[in-house]
């Protein structure tokens, strides 16, 4: 399989390289940046996963937060062990998302977009008003156990990379094909015996479970979480990664997340100009490069092929 798919082989090599870097590099800052890149890539890829059925799911941000808070509660309040706390995140995010999907996926398009937006803001409101969750100041003290501390960055990157490859596999499977069919024209799958609503919910639950795990990793990586980390803006940035990198292929959001996360490291000091930069880049990418970087690559490839054929 790897022989027939050199791109996948390359990605696996990069992931292994990143894990080795985390294990053997001496500089914690650069390791942290690598984790951010992987986490942002995972956020973007989960957002894109729901785009497969044609829905823009702002609640990606909400389930990211639900995962983070679940891990935080499990590890600091309940005192559960590291891996159990981490695994609780995708479970809870998955359960809540199935309920959320069951209610909201009767609608689609603008309604789903707006409801997922409202849901995200309201979940955040609940954190700020719940004393047990630390209110506005959030929760602190999620640390991996001492004996794992040195390996934690490598573990985090492994988990995040596994999410990326897992979602890639899901998209390449027949299930991914069915999701794309639903986006294209949902009457057709419905007319041949597929439970379209159920499949939409499944798509949302897969994505939310994945992003819940990203949230769990985030809680341990940061050790501090607050409601302000989980505004709809998380989904907006994820969408920016998807748009810059290109929606057509799963590597699009990964490339977009990498570029913007690295660029973001230089932009933090610019205050309001940071937002202006993101705004300009989102608008520019949408209007000037609709297919993103992946789209450009495809066009370039097609162009050269045509050039050859012309000669």
């Amino acid at each position, binding site marked *: 399989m790897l022989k027939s798919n050199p791109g996948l082989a390359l990605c696996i090599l990069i992931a292994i390289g990143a894990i080795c870097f985390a294990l053997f590099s001496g500089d914690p800052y650069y390791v942290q940046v690598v984790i951010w890149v992987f986490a942002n890539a995972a956020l973007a890829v989960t957002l894109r996963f729901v785009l497969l059925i044609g829905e823009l799911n702002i609640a990606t941000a909400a389930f990211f937060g639900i995962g983070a808070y679940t891990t935080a509660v499990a590890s600091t309040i309940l005192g559960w062990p590291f891996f159990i706390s981490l695994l609780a995140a995708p479970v809870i995010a998955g359960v809540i998302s199935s309920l959320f999907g069951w209610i909201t996926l009767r609608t689609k398009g603008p309604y789903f977009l707006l409801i997922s937006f409202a849901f995200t803001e309201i979940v955040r409101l609940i954190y700020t008003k719940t004393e047990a969750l630390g209110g506005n100041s959030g929760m602190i003290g999620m640390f991996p156990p001492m004996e794992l501390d040195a390996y934690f960055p490598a573990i985090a990157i492994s988990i995040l990379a596994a999410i990326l490859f897992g979602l890639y596999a899901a998209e390449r499977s027949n299930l991914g*094909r069915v999701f794309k069919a639903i986006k294209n*024209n949902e009457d*057709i*799958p419905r*007319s*041949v015996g597929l*439970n379209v609503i159920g499949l939409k919910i499944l798509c949302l639950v897969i994505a939310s479970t994945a992003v819940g795990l990203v949230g769990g990793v985030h809680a341990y990586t940061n050790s501090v979480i607050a409601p302000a980390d989980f505004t709809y803006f998380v989904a907006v940035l994820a969408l920016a990664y998807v748009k810059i990198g290109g929606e057509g292929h799963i590597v699009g959001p990964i490339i977009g997340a990498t570029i913007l996360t690295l660029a973001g490291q230089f932009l933090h000091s610019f205050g309001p100009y940071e937002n202006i930069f993101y705004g300009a880049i989102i608008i520019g990418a949408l209007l000037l490069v609709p297919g993103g970087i992946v789209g450009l690559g495809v066009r370039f490839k097609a162009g050269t092929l045509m050039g050859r054929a012309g000669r």
Partner: protein
Amino acid sequence: MNDTQTDTLSGYNKSSEGKILLKAESLERKFGGLTAVADFSFELHEGEILGLIGPNGAGKSTTFNLISGFIPPTSGTLSFLDQNITSKSATYISRMGLIRTFQHESLLSEMSVADNIIIATTHRLKTAAARQEKMREMAKLTGLEDYLKVTASSLPHGLQRMLSIAIALAAEPKVLCLDEPLTGLQGSEVKAALDLFEMIRSELGITILLVEHNMRAVMRICDRILVLNHGRLLAAGTPEEVSQNDLVIEAYLGHKK
């Protein structure tokens, strides 16, 4: 004359041999104040090709949407294979083996021909190999085997029609409901399509309900014909009976020809 009229108006055909697969009783559907279908009863018998005709806006498409579960009836009952399917979901009904095609947007336009057909096999077949095999079989049957990698929207129109039939067949129907499958086809394509329908009935043993505007084709291929007008059953019977029915000639053929 009077006698046959009442008999045929009920939509039941006593002379049919096959057992009843699909049965509609007093089907009615309203949209707001508008009645699209009213008091419509009919039976579909195993092994027949039943035509459903009528002028534009007569309620044919609504009828299709009702029997395939895409919209629920306002009143009346539907049964399929002796089971009450009134208000069952489209998914449920299609899983039972009643598969319909669409007049418009009848394809997954952005996906390849192969993917279009494979989607339809997904529910019945669980392995990739079985789906591939079924897909190739259906593509061959409908003359699409050389176009498997082509994006559906870039197929010529006639082949797009064939693809929508291939999709429906891949879902292994007992009853196939075709919504204007001949629209826009050339003369030779129409003949090929009709031969395909005959073959689907005789060799695959699939019963067909056909909505079609092409009167000559309907008269040629259907065993029985139902005529809808203003949402109500105007006449029912063999092609000869229907084509000689004064009401039909007045309401439909008279305007049409």
